[in-house]
């Protein structure tokens, strides 16, 4: 018999329920509110009472209302049909809901129950299998969606029956497995998995090393991220976190993008809805929406479901990783999730940590980031979940609990600078303050030396060094005045400006400039570094600024032109001529 209860107290969306039987922490229950069922999660248990957070507004709710407990935690429904969907934070299909406004308790099925999928078996009768083993596949958009032994199955099984090639619905039995005790288990194309528990059916999770191309120069060419890596983007409001995430969604080299829009603006999700079905995926030529799944819990949607939304997104990403795919998971903004935890913790009158956030916030964040990673599956194939979250620091101050906790958990730090955003130097990532720990991984260095260029990492370090020296020179010029420093200080500063304008700055809204393939990045980096190695001679400091501005201008025209096109080459030779005007020792331009 399922446990039931009665509402005995209501404080905003925290509801106290008097229960008549056993309940478990994080168990899901439904409150019966004038004929509508409101979904809720147990977050604390007292001697006779369960404290539940309701994933809906509790307006109008009365004490005495009945509550039914389900016996399971919040689960994701995993099966073919997830790709291209727009879900709410609890994985209900938003497109299936009626009307313009969201109605309480309108819980729609995440998948298509009646749709036929053409199934192809991969396993044979008699095969030994375990949780996560591939039994068969169906084609979802263009992804070979593996039908796996449910992750919840423990131990070894033998395939007793497996369906032949054919059309099946998701809940049809496609295989029968036999466990060690000879007991039979039916398997369909759908399985459920509790979102707060990592899916661990892989064999091994090594340190990630495989370069993940994003097309964003300040990332790839200065602070590269890897397949299965983690990164975070903190920045004050309006500095470009969301634009950067959207650029990653459009350009990053991944089989699938899972987006958790967590407590941010609805219009930003609408932008994805509106554009992605039209935009091409540069790698497959298909539409971007075909590789994208969106979990939208925007800021006006129920606060309690914000936390659930990031876990739902992670679980979906892990599910597809188990199929041997490269997944990029993006969450905007993880601070909203932390704030949702804070609201609830305060309502429960827990002892607060710094800035009234719950004490265990750092542990929650690092456990979440730890679910990303590059894995070897039991069949030897590889898969990855790369996770990049944004952080919205209160007051733009990076010394606040969410930023600090995330800094400990994520390996790449993409710090957005207010100053750069104010002067429209987009993307406003401060290339010097930011870092990628992967640049220190020997396995990464070895990998990019082979796949990108033998001197790729050296070039990165060289470029960073020029930026740092430029910054120092700039400070000196500011302190001592334009004519109070040697002329070459101006030169050093302007060489760093070239890197800034040509490599770092990138117009996310220009068709060509928005995405730079790695070949082109390599080419431009070599060009810029060659220029930095060139010695110039100037009569006085006043010549320096206009001269380099001309160089930058031509470089920018190159960035706006199709790579290696006539136009591109014309600007390139124009550049050569300008360089010749003042160069002392001509250094070979690659």
């Amino acid at each position: 018999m399922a446990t039931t209860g009665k509402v005995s107290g209501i404080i905003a969306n925290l509801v106290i329920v008097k229960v008549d039987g056993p309940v478990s922490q994080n168990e899901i229950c439904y409150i019966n509110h004038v004929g509508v069922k409101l979904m809720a999660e147990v977050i604390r248990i007292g001697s006779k009472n369960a404290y539940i957070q309701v994933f809906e507004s509790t307006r109008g709710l009365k004490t005495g209302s009945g509550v039914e407990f389900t016996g399971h935690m919040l689960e994701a429904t995993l099966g073919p049909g997830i790709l291209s969907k727009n879900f709410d934070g609890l994985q209900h299909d938003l497109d299936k809901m009626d009307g313009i406004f969201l109605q309480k308790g309108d819980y729609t099925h995440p998948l298509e129950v009646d749709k036929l999928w053409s199934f192809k078996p991969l396993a044979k009768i008699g095969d030994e299998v375990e949780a996560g083993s591939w039994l068969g596949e169906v084609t979802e958009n263009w992804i070979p969606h593996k039908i796996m032994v449910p992750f919840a199955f423990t131990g070894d099984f033998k395939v007793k029956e497996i369906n032949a090639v054919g059309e099946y619905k998701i809940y049809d039995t496609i295989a029968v497995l036999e466990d060690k005790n000879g007991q039979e288990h039916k398997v369909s194309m759908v399985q459920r998995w509790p979102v707060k528990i990592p899916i661990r059916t892989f064999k091994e999770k090594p340190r990630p090393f495989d370069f993940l191309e994003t097309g964003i120069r300040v990332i790839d060419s200065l602070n590269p991220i890897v397949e299965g890596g983690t990164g975070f983007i903190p920045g004050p409001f309006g500095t470009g976190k969301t634009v950067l995430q959207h650029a990653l969604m459009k350009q990053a080299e991944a089989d699938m993008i899972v987006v958790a829009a967590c407590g941010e603006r609805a219009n930003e999700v609408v932008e994805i809805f509106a554009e992605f079905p039209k935009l091409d995926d540069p790698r497959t030529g298909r539409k971007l929406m075909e590789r994208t799944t969106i979990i939208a819990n925007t800021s006006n949607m129920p606060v309690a479901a914000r936390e659930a939304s990031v876990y739902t997104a992670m679980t979906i990403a892990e599910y597809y990783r188990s199929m041997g795919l490269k997944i990029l998971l993006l969450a905007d903004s993880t601070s909203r999730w932390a704030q949702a935890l804070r609201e609830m913790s305060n309502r429960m009158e827990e002892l607060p940590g710094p800035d009234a956030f719950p004490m265990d916030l750092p542990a929650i964040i690092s456990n979440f980031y730890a679910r990303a990673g590059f894995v070897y599956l039991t069949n030897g194939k590889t898969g990855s979940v790369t996770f990049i979250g944004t952080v919205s620091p209160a007051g733009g101050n990076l010394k606040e609990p969410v930023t600090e906790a995330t800094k400990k958990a994520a390996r790449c730090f993409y710090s957005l600078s207010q100053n750069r955003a104010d002067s429209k130097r987009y993307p406003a990532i401060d290339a010097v303050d930011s870092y990628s720990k992967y640049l220190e991984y020997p396995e990464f260095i070895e990998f990019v030396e082979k796949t990108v260029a033998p001197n790729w990492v050296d070039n990165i370090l060289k470029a960073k060094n020029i930026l740092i020296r430029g910054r120092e020179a700039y400070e000196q010029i500011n302190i001592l005045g334009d004519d109070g420093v040697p002329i070459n200080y101006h030169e050093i500063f302007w060489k760093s400006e070239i890197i800034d304008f040509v490599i770092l700055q990138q117009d996310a809204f220009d068709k060509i400039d928005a995405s730079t393939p790695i070949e082109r990045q390599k080419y431009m980096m070599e060009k810029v570094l060659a220029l930095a190695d060139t010695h110039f001679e100037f009569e006085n400091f006043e010549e320096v600024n206009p001269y380099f501005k001309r160089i930058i201008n031509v470089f920018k025209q190159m960035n706006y032109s199709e790579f290696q096109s006539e136009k591109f080459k014309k600007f390139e030779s124009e550049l050569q001529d300008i360089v010749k005007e003042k160069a002392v020792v001509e250094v070979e331009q690659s």
Partner: protein
Amino acid sequence: MLKLNKAKIKRMETTAFQKIHTKIDQITKATCTLHASGIGNEEMALVNDRLAQVVKIEGDLVTLQIFSGTEGIPTNAEVVFLGHAPQLAVSDELSGRFFNAYGQPIDGGPEVDGNMVEIGGPSVNPVRRKQPSELIATGIAGIDLNNTLVTGQKIPFFADPDQPYNQVMAMVALRAKADKIILGGMGITNDDYLFFKNVFENAGAIDRIISFVNTTENPPVERLLVPDMALTAAEYFAAEKNQSVLVLLTDMTLYADALSIVSNRMDQIPSKDSMPGSLYSDLAKLYEKAVQFPEGGSITIIAVTTLSGGDITHAIPDNTGYITEGQLFLRKDTDIGKVIIDPFRSLSRLKQLVIGKKTREDHPQVMNTAIRLYADAANAKTKIENGFDLTDYDKRTMSFAKEYSEKLLAIDINIEIDTMIDTAWKLFNKYFSPAETGIKAELVEKYGKQNTENT
């Protein structure tokens, strides 16, 4: 303090039967607690004729927040539960009317006859929204050129209290060609209230205006109802009548202050700047009512968030900035002695949906270039302050900046967008070479060349 006519309120209620409670257990500064059963969360009640709302239920103990405060409330006060959350009667009769925070007329006119709807209702399903794409022209170049507004957007003015934000907002509202303008006034002075009334009347726009006003003469906690009242009326016209509705909310800082008063009185743990930890969600719930509906209706929100000493790191502007789609910064430019829309800290996030698409293709680059050059002028100014000589380029940027400020940034500008772009080109050509502006060669060729000072 607002006087409520008991008989009138009772008449408004549709449910005839109401049980009257007369025993209050506990009274604090803002709340009272009593035994009652069958009460819904967030339900409205009358406590000795003062409006109150259920904020907490524990067993049969119900806590009510009394909007106008508990001064003078006795333990035997008459408590009547109204059986519903706060609501507003919506119909076309709202047009041209003035109401208080409870949605009751304050203009001497009759009650509005219409459908009763609960305020603060459900959110729009994100997949049912349409991407905003209609440009709102205001004639002010600091807005149209640099921070273009779009219907369905939500954006506040960030301004120090001494800046003319209400004037600018009223001007924007009247030029915006909206079907309805809904004013939500929170803690505004009576003078400001009369200012709005006059401006709208003089513009002959009064029948397009609806106002919900809580002035400094009313209890502060009442103002918590104002934005939801205004937005509920807005939803009626936008969703049901497919109209474009502009909602003006001033001053959201005073709204947030009221939130902190309540949370403080309820002994909640404050987070930054003594604001409740839920400030982000509380504000987002309001601002996210801005929407473009597929059927053509839209709600655009223009708000005011007053700053103290220009500090935008304070929790109120900070959380607002994280929610809204940009912000418009008012600043006095001492070089030209006028208030300008500051191009550095101002931003319209939705501008890229229209600029270069609904406006001329050179708009984005011209806008960005002008701002970059204006930033160079700011650097040159710093040089002067530090006692350094200026280069020729520095001097040119400073002259440019002054003229740019006068001809484009000042809030008293009222011109067409094409003229704004041409004006910027003229300034570029007057002070800089094409290499210094760094604009795409094709654009210079197509638009820049003909815009010299003499054309």
